[in-house]
């Protein structure tokens, strides 16, 4: 297992390197640049600015300098658009925000979705099952860009209980709506996946054997059924977790939370090369990391899997 982990980490390095190179080239091949504007800058001014940011060097030199900055100083460079900030500043400011509401959404979605799924499977084809499936389908058809305005309409405009947006240092009234809006559709997927995999396990031979042994139903579910039913869920949760903690543009735009999702989209549109690169590398590393964690978890829940 240690050996496997080590190998996976080794493979992650070239993966990230390829990601960096491709993103870098794609970004630079998009028409326009960070300083393209409605009022084209006089050539002299443009030359001055490009020289300041090293954009006048050949691409391979820029890429090399960029990689050197990351590896040697963990420096992702200055933002070309937000002049007083560096990429490190932007990530240091945005990532904790995204991590907070994303992490909470993850916990919320997993607990509620998982419970709904398990309960629905145990009580298959009863009122409880229909109710749980109903809720999860309802949540599935309400994507966050529909949820967000509905929540604001209810909690801010109608009831006046919660502020309509802003972060405010992560105070709980500001967290409620972003967390609900982000969590609902994930929760629905988790409930569905848990329910169907739980059903499959419950109908398997070894569960029949366990029941035949006369084990109490509680032990059958908790000890024998739950763990194996997690396998398909884990692969989904790995992806979902990265998706949630790396932020949602919709949540950031709608609730003005100031997380990374917004920087990701804005930097691509404004050709803020360095911010775009920094955020992509962060997302890429997290994806690689959680894919690895998910794989390691498989081995824990399913003894058939060995590395």
């Amino acid at each position, binding site marked *: 297992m240690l050996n496997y982990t080590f190998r996976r980490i080794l493979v992650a390095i070239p993966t990230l390197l390829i990601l960096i190179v491709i993103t870098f080239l794609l970004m630079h091949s998009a028409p326009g640049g960070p300083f393209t504007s409605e009022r084209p800058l006089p050539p002299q001014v443009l030359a001055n600015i490009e020289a300041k940011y090293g954009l006048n060097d050949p691409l391979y030199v820029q890429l090399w300098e960029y990689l050197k900055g990351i590896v040697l100083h963990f420096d992702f460079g200055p933002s070309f658009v937000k002049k007083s900030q560096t990429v490190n500043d932007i990530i240091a400011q945005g990532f904790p925000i995204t991590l907070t509401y994303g992490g909470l959404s993850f916990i919320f979605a997993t607990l509620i979705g998982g419970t709904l799924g398990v309960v629905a499977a145990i009580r298959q084809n009863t009122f409880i099952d229909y109710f749980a499936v109903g809720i999860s389908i309802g949540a599935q058809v309400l994507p966050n860009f529909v949820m967000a305005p509905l929540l604001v309409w209810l909690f801010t405009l109608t009831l006046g209980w919660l502020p309509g947006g*802003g972060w405010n240092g992560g105070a709980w009234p500001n967290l409620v709506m972003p967390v609900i809006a982000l969590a609902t559709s994930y929760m629905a997927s988790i409930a569905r996946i848990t329910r169907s995999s739980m059903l499959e396990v419950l109908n398997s031979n070894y569960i029949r054997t366990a029941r035949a042994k006369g084990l109490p139903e509680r032990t059958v579910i908790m000890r024998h059924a739950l763990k194996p039913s997690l396998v398909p869920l884990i692969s989904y949760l790995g992806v979902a977790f990265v998706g949630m903690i790396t932020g949602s543009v919709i949540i950031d735009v709608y609730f003005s939370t100031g997380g990374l999702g917004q920087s990701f989209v804005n930097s691509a549109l404004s050709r803020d090369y360095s911010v775009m690169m920094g955020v992509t590398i962060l997302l890429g590393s997290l994806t690689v990391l959680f894919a690895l964690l998910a794989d390691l978890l498989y081995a824990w829940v399913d003894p058939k899997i060995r590395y």
Partner: protein
Amino acid sequence: MKKFTTTLAASLLGATMLTGAAYAATVAAGDTLAADQTFTYRVLDEHSSVDPQIVEDVSGADIVRDLFEGLMNQDADGNLIPGVATGFTTNDEKNVYTFTLREDAKWSNGEPVTAGDFVYAWRRLVDPATGSPYSWFGELMSIENVGAVMAGEAPLEDLGVTAIDDHTLEVRLTASLPYFALMTTHGSTFPSPQAVIEEHGDAWTNPENIVSNGAYVLTEHVPSELSVRERNPMYWDNENTVIEKVVALVINDENTAFTRWQAGELDRTEVPTGQYPRLSEEYPNEALSFPRLCSYYYTFNLSENGPEAFQDVRVRQALSYALDRSIITDKVLQGGQFQAYTFTPGATAGFEVPSVPYASMTQEDRDAAAVALLADAGYGADNPLTFDMLYNTSEGHKKIAIAMSQMWKQKLGVTAVLANQEWKTFLETRGNQDFQLARGAWCGDYNEASTFLDLLTSESGYNDGKFASDEVDALMNEAKTLTDATANYTRVEQILADEMPVIPVYHYTAVFMLSERVKNWPVENVEQNWYSRDLYIAE
């Protein structure tokens, strides 16, 4: 209180101008001040910077105008009033300006604001090492040697700005600019504190480091969320300032912002697209619409890359005539926008909208003329005119483009193929003359017609359609030296109406929701240069 000058034309007459008190928050009789003097407003995006020489976006410039004060300010109508300078003198050629600085102007750390601070800031603006995206403003101001300094061919000391003493600043220009003083209300000309910048580098604008000379100081900045500025007790006119605290909240989505305005979290926000008619009925005292110095147009590609059809003036006129602008302003936009028949908005100071023939015709007459012109040019059912129409991706631009192409289709049988590109790609395409007909928009950099008309001179870097007319070039060149250039501007607009290098569509209005509690908003200032210190919150 004596106003500085009422119009630009008046400012051209005097050689010496001095005034008494500045404009400030004057509480109207009958208004009681609210206990909490906090003004909260929405900004679309995080500001680019609050460094006066670096900032390039409007919301950043609004903040800079509160944090720093330049030589001159504007009052609620956009007229020049004293700022750090109590007044200025100029010579007959209007190429040397001498500003007298007030003695009581101070930085927020208590140091006096001197002429040297302006010299430092202006050199910094054009210094290649600064890499300011607004250094072209120095060029626009025609300061002596600015080109050589920007190119790094001359030392900074050669720039034509000198501190004669601590309170006298002399500026030497290479051109005669009667409206020069107006330019000193622009943020990029505001002073900056050399010692602080040298100590902290790029981080000097952080709340813990910044030193500024305006009515407010930056006290908090949470990137992508908010910035807070609070009253600067060192400001020379602090006793006449009422607003204690100004909060700018970053809210990307205009509908969210509007909801939060409704919930009372904001005092000011933009009206969501297309909702002005409804909101102005629902909130008659709070939905505001007023002219802005911006022009929306489509430009023909007249370069050699452009289609041959557009070389024919009759085709250009036909397309412009057949465009029923009232449909665009009254049915599509519905925000009180103005139909445009001239390139320069009528709201521009000292600009009289000239009578161009096609503006006074009825739409039926224009349509008839358009059909005849196009037929003359040889286009019709047997030889249909088809061209591409390019705009940058946006729902609003799309609606307008669809309306325009439909009008052309129905009235003239012309097919305009719509295409949209994402903003930066669009700018690149248009700048490379890789288009046929493209959308354009221009907002004045200062309140004078040349900020628009210069765009269509052959030398202009912004003339993406590559229209070239010797007469326009000559008239605009001459205008720079005239005390009153109205006749030149009128003539240029007439040439534009004849030659139709661009199709003027409409002139912008600003539409926003302003809480009734906020008083003194400068609705008459077409540049929307507002200063928080002029506002107050009533109960």
